[in-house]
């Protein structure tokens, strides 16, 4: 029974006050994209659009609302893969780029590489006309609070993000 679209908003502990908005976010992303799939849209377009919608939702730790690195900065990774030809594109440790999943798709479509990282990925973004965004625009108060909370010497960021073993 085709088409099908499935999305996730990451695993790990979601504080009670954010649960409803997280659930609403993944449903909205699916609702917004699935009608295009039903209208003969491609699977590739659908997954990129769905991830872009979630990326722009501050209740997920992917883009807007990303978790911060030890220095309080945002470094993002993304990947796409097209099952027709096993084509793929990825970026890692990329900064100040909105919607890195779209940049990952450009890596797949415009280069013969599978992954570009760091400053090289940023240079490629500029060459593709992808606008740079201020890092501050990617950092939410919630992300900053969690970063500060986990700077303490005895903090366990993995456990804080993932929760204890089930």
């Amino acid at each position, binding site marked *: 029974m085709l088409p099908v679209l499935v999305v996730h908003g990451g695993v790990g502990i979601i504080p009670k006050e954010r649960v409803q908005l997280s*659930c609403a976010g993944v449903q909205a992303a699916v609702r917004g994209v*699935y009608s295009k799939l039903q209208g003969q849209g491609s699977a590739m377009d659908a997954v990129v659009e769905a991830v872009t919608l979630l990326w722009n939702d501050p209740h997920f730790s992917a883009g807007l609302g990303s978790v911060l690195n030890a220095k309080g900065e945002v470094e993002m990774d993304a990947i796409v893969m097209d099952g027709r030809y096993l084509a793929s594109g990825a970026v890692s440790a990329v900064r100040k780029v909105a919607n890195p999943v779209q940049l990952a798709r450009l890596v797949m479509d415009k280069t013969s590489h599978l992954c570009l990282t760091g400053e090289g990925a940023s240079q490629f973004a500029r060459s593709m006309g992808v606008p740079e965004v201020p890092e501050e625009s990617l950092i939410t108060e919630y992300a900053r609070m969690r970063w500060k909370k986990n700077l303490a010497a005895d903090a366990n960021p993995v456990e804080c993000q993932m929760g204890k073993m089930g």
Partner: protein
Amino acid sequence: TVGAVAVDAEGNIACATSTGGMLNKMEGRVGDTACIGCGGYADNRVGAVSPTGEGEAIMKVTLARLILFHMEQGRSVEAAADEALAYMKDRVGGLGGVVVVDPQGEWSVRFSSLQMAWAAAQQQTLHYGLYTGE
């Protein structure tokens, strides 16, 4: 991390995953998401996976590709995901979650952590959940 898998009306399959990484990670630390076969994999002949969870554990077991290997050996999307997540938990002690789809439109959402926000659409039905077993 956020991710998606899809199979369209023509039976073409794709996946996408994007992440800000792990809380307070070392500068330059790259997790599973950008690694093909780990943070995502899609093959029209088998299916597509978008995982999330402890990146180092996902990379050690190449979780996305491992699930598709199980499906190539005939497991259902659910059994393949469960077997791979159990192996990751048992072998390297890592928690994670996946969304999986196959070319026939069978799909599954599985996770070994306590929560994962997810949603799926097929025909006129929207499915969604957050806790194990929903």
